[in-house]
Each structure stands twice: as structure tokens, then as C-alpha cells.
């Protein structure tokens, strides 16, 4: 592994959680392109805590989907993933995900860590009734089909769907919201521990998105799941997540308990992102767009990659890449000057809303 720039915090304990189910260490994804090397995931360190709901947010193109794929060693060709991904099952030895054989990986992906990916509407085989899709998955993993279908019916009911009607339909006969819920059911049918969802609701309208989120919370309790929910929609996931991780330019720039991030975001980017988000309870406040545009992965700015857009940037920021610093317990931020962020990037919501 050729690490060009050591960016590891001496104190690895900073990103370690007490009972991780997935550990991501120095995960990097590169694509060789005509224009040069495109590093679309850049040295990410992250623990997913057992039984938590982790929200990963960031602008389009910030590398969220890359991080999701990395967790399952599912980065598309010709992308190259390096680093270390460790899965910690409750009752077995830790699994080195990047060292698995093809067959082992296939098992891991459905039976341990399952996923619902962006644009998943097309994940069903359209020529087959929904039932056939479930049967196929069960058979491919040598599961008892009858028992599996029984579990399917239960999960479908949990998702407010009529099991038989859904199973007897072709995918296109279902509305987008129903398809998406059926897909969530499919991803849970082999009883995984972790469900990774990449923009699972982005194509749906808000009411359906919100409803699905509520249902996910219930599913999580009932089936003892760990959820990783990836989205560009911060307010949506804030409702659901225990912790939020914020990505900017292919790196993690801040992570912490949801409340802390909403109330005391320490990274200037996170603070600007919150300010740019229209809020139903403050529709008349001035929302502030974030000046400038997201960087090109082939040509990421030197030092702190946010420096061209950051109102607090100084020479240090142009030269050096900030490591994670501890802002509070379990709240880390990659910014040299995070202590000044509150003053430099004040929240536009004032006074009475300060406790949001």
C-alpha cells in the first residue's frame, strides 16, 4: 500500500467506538482516469457501532456512495479499494472483508451486511413477480424457501404492505414507495446484522420518505439491526440517526452524536451546510448558500480541501491537511480552527431556536 501522505491521528482511539460492528481504516478508492488519478475516497477511518443508526451526509459527489460500497468491498471496476475493513459478528471471529473469497463475500453481503443502493428501483428482476425475486435470493443462499417466505410476509407487513398482493405483483406494478419498501424487505430476508442504505428514499416524495424512516426505526428495534443511512439530505437523516458523519471532498470532516452536530457543529462546512438548509420552522430566516463549488477528485486543493470555500482559512489550512481533533466526547472534527467556527460561521437561526 503506498500511502503518500500520512494523515493518521496518532491517537487511533479518537475514531474507535466501544463496540464496533464494522471498522473502516484508511479506506481509499482510486480511479485511473485520462486526466490523472482520481481519489474519490481518501483515507477514511470510521467505526460503525453495533446497533446504532449512523447517518452519513455530504454533497453530491463527496464520496458517500464510495464509502458505502467500501464497507461491502463492492466498489465498481475499475475503482481500486485499499485499506482495512473489519466486520465484527456478535458470535464469530472478526472478518477481514477485503480478504474474503468471492463466495464468502457473496454470503457476507446478504447474510451479514446487506445493502439497498441508490437508484435501487432497478434492483428487482422486472420479468419476474416479486415473489420470484425473493425465492431466487433464498435459493441462491440455500435458505429454506417456505420459512423464508414466511419471514418475508412478516417484514412486508411491518412495512405496511399487503404481503400477498405485493408478492403476486410485477415490480413495475408497484408504486415507487412500495417498490422501495419491498426492496428493503428483500435486503432483510436473510437476516443480516447490518443494513447499509445509500439514498434509499431519494426518488420518493417526502411523506413516503418520512414514513419509511419511521418504519426503519421500528424494523431496527424488532430485528436488532445496525443501520447505516447515506443521504445528501441532512434534516431527513437527523431525525433518525444516533450519530452523524459529514463528508466533504472524499473525506470525513466531522462525526458526532446527532444532537451535538445540530447544536454545536464544529466544522465550518457542517455549519454552512446547516445554514443552507431551509427549515420549516424558520422559513423566513435568511438561508445562506455555501459559496464556491465542490472540488474535482482529480484536482483536490492542497492542505485542507475546504480551504478555497472556507471563511476561516489561513496559511496553515493551505499547507497542511488537518487531522481529526476531539471537539467533545465522541465528537471529532477535521479542522485546525474549529474552536473559532462558532463565531466565524454563526448559525442563522438565532435566540429561541438555539436549542434546536
Amino acid at each position, binding site marked *: 500500500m503506498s500511502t503518500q501522505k500520512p494523515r493518521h491521528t496518532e491517537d487511533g482511539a479518537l475514531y474507535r467506538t466501544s463496540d464496533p460492528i464494522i471498522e473502516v481504516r484508511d479506506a481509499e478508492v482510486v480511479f485511473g482516469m485520462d486526466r490523472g488519478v482520481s481519489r474519490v475516497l481518501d483515507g477514511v477511518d470510521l467505526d460503525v457501532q453495533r446497533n446504532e443508526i449512523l447517518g452519513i451526509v455530504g454533497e453530491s459527489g463527496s464520496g458517500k456512495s464510495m464509502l458505502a460500497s467500501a464497507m461491502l468491498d463492492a466498489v465498481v471496476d475499475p475503482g481500486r479499494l485499499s485499506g482495512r475493513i473489519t466486520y465484527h459478528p456478535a458470535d464469530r471471529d472478526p472478518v477481514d472483508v477485503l480478504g474474503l473469497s468471492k463466495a464468502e463475500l457473496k454470503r457476507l453481503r446478504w447474510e451479514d451486511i446487506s445493502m439497498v443502493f441508490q437508484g435501487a428501483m432497478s434492483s428487482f428482476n422486472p420479468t419476474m413477480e416479486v415473489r420470484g425475486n425473493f425465492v431466487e435470493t433464498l435459493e441462491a443462499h440455500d435458505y429454506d424457501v417456505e420459512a423464508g417466505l414466511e419471514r418475508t410476509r412478516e417484514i412486508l407487513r411491518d412495512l405496511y404492505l399487503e404481503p400477498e398482493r405485493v408478492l403476486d405483483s410485477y415490480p413495475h406494478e408497484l408504486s415507487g414507495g412500495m417498490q422501495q419498501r419491498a426492496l428493503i424487505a428483500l435486503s432483510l430476508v436473510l437476516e443480516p446484522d447490518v443494513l447499509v442504505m445509500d439514498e434509499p428514499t431519494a426518488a420518493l416524495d417526502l411523506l413516503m420518505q418520512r414514513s419509511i424512516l419511521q418504519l426503519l426505526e421500528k424494523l431496527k428495534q424488532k430485528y436488532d439491526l445496525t443501520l447505516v443511512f447515506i443521504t445528501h439530505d441532512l434534516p431527513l437523516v*437527523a431525525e433518525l440517526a444516533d450519530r452523524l458523519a459529514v463528508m466533504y471532498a472524499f473525506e470525513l470532516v466531522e462525526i458526532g452524536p446527532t444532537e451535538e452536530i445540530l447544536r454545536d457543529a464544529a466544522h465550518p462546512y457542517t455549519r454552512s451546510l446547516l445554514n443552507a438548509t431551509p427549515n420549516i420552522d424558520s422559513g423566513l430566516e435568511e438561508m445562506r448558500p455555501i459559496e464556491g463549488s465542490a472540488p474535482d477528485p482529480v484536482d483536490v486543493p492542497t492542505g485542507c480541501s475546504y480551504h478555497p470555500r472556507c471563511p476561516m482559512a489561513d496559511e496553515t489550512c493551505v499547507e497542511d491537511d488537518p487531522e481529526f481533533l476531539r471537539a467533545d466526547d465522541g465528537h471529532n472534527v477535521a479542522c485546525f480552527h474549529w474552536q473559532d467556527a462558532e463565531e466565524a460561521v454563526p448559525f442563522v437561526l438565532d435566540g429561541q431556536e438555539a436549542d434546536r
Partner: protein
Amino acid sequence: MSGDPLVSLTDVEVHFEESQGLLDFGEPELVRAVDGVSLDIEERDVVALVGESGCGKTTLGKTAIGLQRPTGGSVEFQGQDVWDAKDGKGDVEVPYGEVRRSLQIIHQDPGSALNPNRRVMKTLEAPLKKWQSGMSAGDRRGEILSMLEEVGMSPASDYAGRYPHQLSGGEKQRVALVRSLLMDPDLILADEAISALDVSLRVEMMDLMLDLQDRYDTSFVFVSHDLSNARYLASHGGGRIGVMYLGELVEVGPAEQVIENPRHPYTKVLKWATPDLRVDEGAGEPPVRKIDIPDPKDPPSGCRFHTRCPEAREACVRDAPATEEVGDGHEVACFRTVDDHEYWSSPELVDDPSGGDRDTTSTAD
């Protein structure tokens, strides 16, 4: 100018016939995309239409700008019936071409609206060539460059030379906006025009629209599934929010009133569905009895919302509520706004006790 509204919709109805599968010899099914909608849009007005997917927002928007012919009711532009103008019926005071130029649209997907093989300049020259054929090539370019600067695409000459794939989503959307602005329109339909943009770019785009409203008196019909964006634009633009459900306008009124004091149960549901950044209160169960929208081909009897409405009573199954004025320019179609309606003495609707969509009696069809 006359006292006519810029655009006036009266009892508009748009029904689509949807033919069924090959082997089906039955009647074609009717999708009631828009039903009985009346709405006036003034100069320098903002109307934000919200509702779930498939509720008819886009169809209503397109009908308002004369792109969709209604199957019932009328659409007038400055007092001129738009479709009479198109058909050359009666005394046409405003020719159809003029209507088309005045009422513009920007689409949801900024990418697909631009020709990928044309540079920005070329794309933007087309409308000017068509509508201002007398303009010299030099003036045309000058106008385009100044417009690009105006929407924040600077240096304009650099952007003018780019192809769409060399623009970000937000930039493409601004090019689409410039293209419609070059027609000097009176009304622009922005159909989910910011939904595909990143959060930070959405505000920027809405601010730009407000700026144009301010400077050129342009009116906007803003279609969105997001109530907080609708509120941002409509409140700042001094406009209204219109809430649609299964083809009907169930509540319309000044933005702040609709948000602060929603009167229709469905508006309250949409408000619930709109995330805010509060940490303390969990959202709780969806405040609807079912989370799926009924099939628009077969809308429920009576009040169309009765199958999901948390307040529904038996009266709602039988009769459809009329639109009532509940405040200045604030109209609602729900029995609950009428104090002495028989609704109040009618028994509550009871669902299958298992709740939600979990009814097991789906053998009827």
C-alpha cells in the same frame, strides 16, 4: 393594462385516458390528473404547488402555462382564452405565439433540458433568433453574456463556451433559467427545478428567482414536493402555497398562513413530513391512516382524502367538501372548516384494527 389576472384558471379539469394491456377489451381507464381547480395568478406573483408524487402538480402547472390542454374548464392569459387563441376561435386579442413566449418552463432535470452537443452560447442563441429575429448577432451575444453574468455565471464568456457536461447541476439549471428569461416571460413554471440540486445550491437558485421576480416582475409557479422550499420561495416572494391531493387543490392561501395555521388535515400531514432540525421531538407515527396514495384511476368517493385522513368521519365517505374561504385569500376544502356541518355529528370511520395498509381482505379485485 386591464384588470385581468395574468393567468386565470377556472374549474380546470385534465383527464387522461390510459389504455390498458393488450388483452384488455374494457373501457380505457381515466386518470383524473386535475379536477375542478380554479386559481388566479397575478403579475409578480408566486404560487408554490405542493403535494405527493402523482397528485397533479406538474399537470396543473403545465395547464397554467398553456402547455397542457385541459379537458374541461378554461385557461386565460390576460383575459384571452389560451386555447381559443391556439384554435383561432373568436376574436383573438393575444395570439398564441405571444402566449407561448410569455409563459415559460424550467424542468426538473437540468441535464436533459439542454442539448449535450451544443455549447451554452448556441443553446441560448436559439430563443433570441426565434423571438427577436431583428437583433444583430453581436447584440445577441452581448445580451446572452450579460444575462449569464446576471445569474452569477462569471466569467460569462468562459461559461458560454462550455458544453453541458462541463457544467455542474446548479449551473445547468441556471442556463435553463437564462434560456427561459431570454424570452422575456411573464410567468415561469419551475417544475421541481431545484429538487435535483444540492441543498446549498437550492437556496441560491431560489434567491435568484426572487431576484428576478423583483427586477422583472416575473411571476413563478413553483412545483415542489418539499414544503420548506415552497415556504421559502412563496413567503419571500409574497405569494401563496397551494396544496394538491389526487388532482384537487385542497388548500391554498398566503404562504405563512398555510404553514402556521394549516386548516386541511392533509396540509398538516405534509407539514409532519417536512423534516426540521429539531432534536428533541421524535416525529412519531405518520399521521395518516394509510401511507400509500390511492390509485388515481379510482379515487375514493366523497372527500378523496378520506381513506387516509386521521379526522375522517362517515360524512366524508359520501360527500365531497366544497371549497370554503377561511381567511383572506385562504381557501380550504374540508368539512371541518364548516361549524354546523353534519360532519360533526357523523360517526368516526373505523379501520381494520391492525391499522395501516394491513388489510387482509384484498381478494375483492
